[in-house]
C-alpha cells in the first residue's frame, strides 16, 4: 500500500516536473500555459494527498480556473508568436547554472535540516471528522480575521487598478 502511494507520488511528481520543464522550454506561450495548468493540477493532487482538499479545490479554481484563463485570454488578445530564445545563449546557460546551483544548495539544506515532530493538533483523522473546509474557516475567521479583511481590500484595489490600467482612456 505504501509503495503504491510512493509510486503514485513519483508518477505525479514526474508529470509535474516534465510539465514545469515544458513551461520554461516551450516556444509557444500557449503551450507553456497549458503545461503550467498541468503543473497546477499535479500540485492539486499533492494537496489532496496532504489531506488538504480545500486547498486543492481552491488551487484549481483560482489558478487553473481564473488566473490561467486570464493569462491565456490576454495572450490571445495580444496574439504573440513564438519567441526567439537563442539570442543570448550564454545568458541562458548562466541562468541554468545559477538555478542548478541554487537547487543543489536548497536540497543540501533540506537534507541537512532535522524535521521536527508533529506539534499541532490537526491530524488527518481530525480533518476526516471535522472537515477541512470547517478547519480552514475556523482559522480564517478567528486568528486570521484581520489579514483576511485586508486581503479583501487588496483584491478590491487590484480590481480598480486593473480597470484603470487596461482602460483605453481613463
Amino acid at each position, binding site marked *: 500500500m505504501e509503495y503504491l502511494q510512493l509510486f503514485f507520488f513519483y508518477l505525479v511528481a514526474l508529470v509535474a516536473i516534465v510539465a514545469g520543464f515544458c513551461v520554461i522550454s516551450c516556444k509557444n506561450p*500557449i503551450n507553456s500555459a497549458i503545461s503550467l495548468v498541468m503543473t497546477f493540477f499535479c500540485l492539486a493532487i499533492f494537496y489532496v494527498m496532504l489531506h488538504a482538499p480545500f486547498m486543492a479545490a481552491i488551487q484549481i479554481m483560482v489558478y487553473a480556473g481564473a488566473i490561467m484563463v486570464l493569462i491565456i485570454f490576454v495572450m490571445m488578445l495580444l496574439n504573440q508568436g513564438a519567441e526567439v530564445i537563442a539570442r543570448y545563449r550564454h545568458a541562458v546557460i548562466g541562468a541554468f547554472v545559477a538555478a542548478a546551483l541554487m537547487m543543489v544548495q536548497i536540497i543540501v539544506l533540506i537534507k541537512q535540516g532535522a524535521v521536527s515532530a508533529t506539534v499541532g493538533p490537526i491530524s488527518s483523522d481530525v480533518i476526516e471528522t471535522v472537515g477541512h473546509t470547517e478547519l480552514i474557516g475556523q482559522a480564517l475567521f478567528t486568528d486570521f480575521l484581520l489579514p483576511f479583511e485586508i486581503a479583501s481590500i487588496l483584491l478590491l484595489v487590484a480590481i480598480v487598478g486593473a480597470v484603470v490600467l487596461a482602460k483605453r482612456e481613463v
Partner: protein
Amino acid sequence: MPEMLSLSNDPILFLSVMVAKILVVFIVVVLIVAYATYAERKIIGRMQTRLGPTMTGPLGLLQPIADGLKLFFKEDIIPAQSSKFAFILAPMMILVPAFITVAVIPFGDFITVGGYLVPLHITDLNVGILYILAMAGLGVYGIVLAGWASNNKYSLIGGIRSAAQMVSYELAAGLSMIAVFMLSETLSLRGIVDAQAGSVLNWYIFSQPLAFCLFVITSLAEINRTPFDLPEAETELVSGFCTEYSSMKYALFFMAEYANMIVVSAITATLFLGGPAGPFAGPINLLLKIFFFMFLFIWIRATFPRVRYDQLMFMGWKVFLPLALLNIVITGAVIVF
C-alpha cells in the same frame, strides 16, 4: 446496522463496487447524451410542427447511433496552420470536466451489498461544490484552446467570447450557490441532499427561489446553450470555435454540450430539488428531475432568440451578479436574525 463499505474492511469488494458504480453512471450519462440529441430534434420538431427524425429504426430511435457512426467514420481533417497539440487536446479538455463532475452527485441513498452499506454516489467530497465550480472553470479551456488552435478568426473570436462569457457567468453561478450552502452549512453535496430531506417543502427551491432562477439562467449561459450560445453562433461566427473540427472531434464537442446539460440539470436537481428524494427509487427520481430540466432547456432553445453580446455581458455583470450578491446578503440577514 451494517458497517459502511470501505477500502480497509473489504478492499476487493470495495474496488469492484466502485468500478461498477463508475461504469453504470458513465453508461447512463452516455446513453442520455445520445438520446438527448434525439429528444432535442424530436421535441423541437414537434414544437415547430414537424416530425423530427423518423426514418432510422422505429420512430427514428436509432438515429443517434447512426449519427455517431457516421461521425466516427468520417475523415479527420486537421488544418495545416493549426497548433496540432492544442487542436487535439481541446475536445478532450472540454469533455473530461463535464464527465468527472458527475462523480460527486449523489443519486440515491444507501444499498446493502455483501453485508456492507454502500452509498449511492461515486464519491462524497468535503468540498463538493468547490469541486464542481473548479471543474466548471476548466471547461473554458477546451473552448478557448479549440478556438485558438484552429488558426481561424471565427474560431478565435468564438473562443475569446466564450472565455469572457464563461468567466463572467461563473461568478454569478458560484455566488448563487453560496446562498444554498449558507443554509445547509456544508459544501458536501451529500450533506446538501440530507439537509433537504424530510419534506418537499424543505427543498431549497422554496427557500431560495431567486438563487434557483439565477443558477438555472447562469448555468445555461455557462454551458453555452441558447439563448446564450454566442461562442458558436452560426449566423455570425460560422459555428465559432468548432468551425474547423470534423469527424470524431466534432462529435466530442457535441457530446460535451449534452453532457454539460446533464451535469447542470443534475446539479440543479441536487442543490434545489432535493436530489434523489421523491416518490420512486432514488436514481429514478433524480433521472426524472434531470429529464425535466433537459426538457426545459430544449424548450427554451425552441422559444427564445439569441441575445446580443453586449446584452449578455450587461446581464451577467450588472443584473445577475448584483442579484446574487443581494440574495447572499438577504440570506445572511435571515440566518442571523
